[in-house]
């Protein structure tokens, strides 16, 4: 992993850790460790997914796994991280709900890590806060900072929701999908982005948030 990406990952880890301190209600023991472990596994799964999609066999070229700059599949990373976290807490949904605000804050840190990577800028813009590359006359949307700020707002909002099974995590997924979907038109892309996956995340999140509390609510699972 390149040093700039490592700094972005450290920013995400620091904000994730901070999130577990800021919103500790209902968390399992060692919440930051579980969150960071899940994030690392998600990154690995996302990288493997991207390599396979690009036609590179991860078994024949294991060194390529470290080339995160070559691409990380967002959907694979999300599924991998959520699965790893759920595995670490033995499938207790309440712990998924409890960690959601911290996870959103960590994701905001990853997007904000564009400052280290020099990768904040998107499409051209005349807005007053648009910024230009050094030596360029084209001012651009600082699109990754938009995403980071929106995810901080989402984390703060979700943390204020009451604990009902899958309500926080479902709405957290909706927030992530919405943030990515709304900022995608301002991103420069060669592959068209993962719009379909963002819409799927919103749909799954909405269903989970609406159906989860009715299906899973029970005194033994509720966190007070």
């Amino acid at each position, binding site marked *: 992993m390149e040093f700039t990406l490592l700094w972005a990952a450290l920013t995400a880890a620091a904000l994730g850790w901070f999130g577990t301190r800021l919103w500790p209600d209902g968390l399992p023991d060692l919440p930051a460790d579980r969150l960071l472990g899940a994030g690392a596994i998600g990154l690995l799964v996302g990288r493997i997914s991207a390599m396979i999609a690009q036609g*590179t066999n991860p*078994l024949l070229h294991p060194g390529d796994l470290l*080339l995160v700059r*070559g*691409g990380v599949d967002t959907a694979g990373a999300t599924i991998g991280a959520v699965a790893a976290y759920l595995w670490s807490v033995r499938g207790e949904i309440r712990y998924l709900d409890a960690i959601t605000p911290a996870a959103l804050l960590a994701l905001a840190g990853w997007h904000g890590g564009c400052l280290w990577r020099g*990768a904040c800028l998107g499409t051209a813009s005349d807005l007053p806060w648009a910024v230009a590359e050094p030596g360029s006359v084209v001012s651009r949307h600082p699109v990754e900072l938009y995403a980071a700020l929106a995810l901080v707002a989402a984390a703060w909002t979700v943390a204020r929701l009451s604990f009902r099974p899958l309500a926080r995590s479902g709405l957290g997924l909706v927030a992530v999908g919405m943030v990515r979907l709304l900022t995608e038109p301002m991103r420069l892309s060669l592959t068209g982005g993962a719009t379909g996956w963002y819409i799927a995340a919103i749909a799954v999140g909405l269903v989970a948030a609406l159906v989860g509390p009715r299906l899973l609510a029970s005194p033994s699972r509720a966190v007070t």
Partner: protein
Amino acid sequence: MRRLLPIAVVVALSSSCGAPGADISGVPDLPEMSADEFEAKLAVLDRPAVVNVWASWCIPCRSEAPLLNAAFEVHRDQVGFIGVDVQDNQSDAKAFLAEFDLRFEHVFDRSRSIPNRFGGFGTPITFFFDSGGELVSTHNGIIDERGLALGIDELLHLDP
């Protein structure tokens, strides 16, 4: 059954993609080119150009290759794409091109005279040139999708 699952995953991955020893019989030799010839080529291209310096032994180049192909497919009508294979041999270079199905033009520069002329270091390097053949920016090291898209977009704003 649970013990068999990892084995099944490994077998599936092994056979899924990236077969080694790609068939290079249909891939022509890469034309050798000096720095002077390359500069002259850029000057008459009459459109901006992305020049990627790569080598078959370069591990980061493997992760760039699919991105460069994607960029070529999106911008082929507006931007020229040229690969410069350095410090390599023809058979390994052709195997690399065949493995990634790189469809844009490539030249062979065993002595690295072309990247040395333009001031980049290491491998890979991505140079961005305007339509007059003047160097606009240089990205040393592996470039990601956003960086490549940004470099191309900057070129297109210079030469709308």
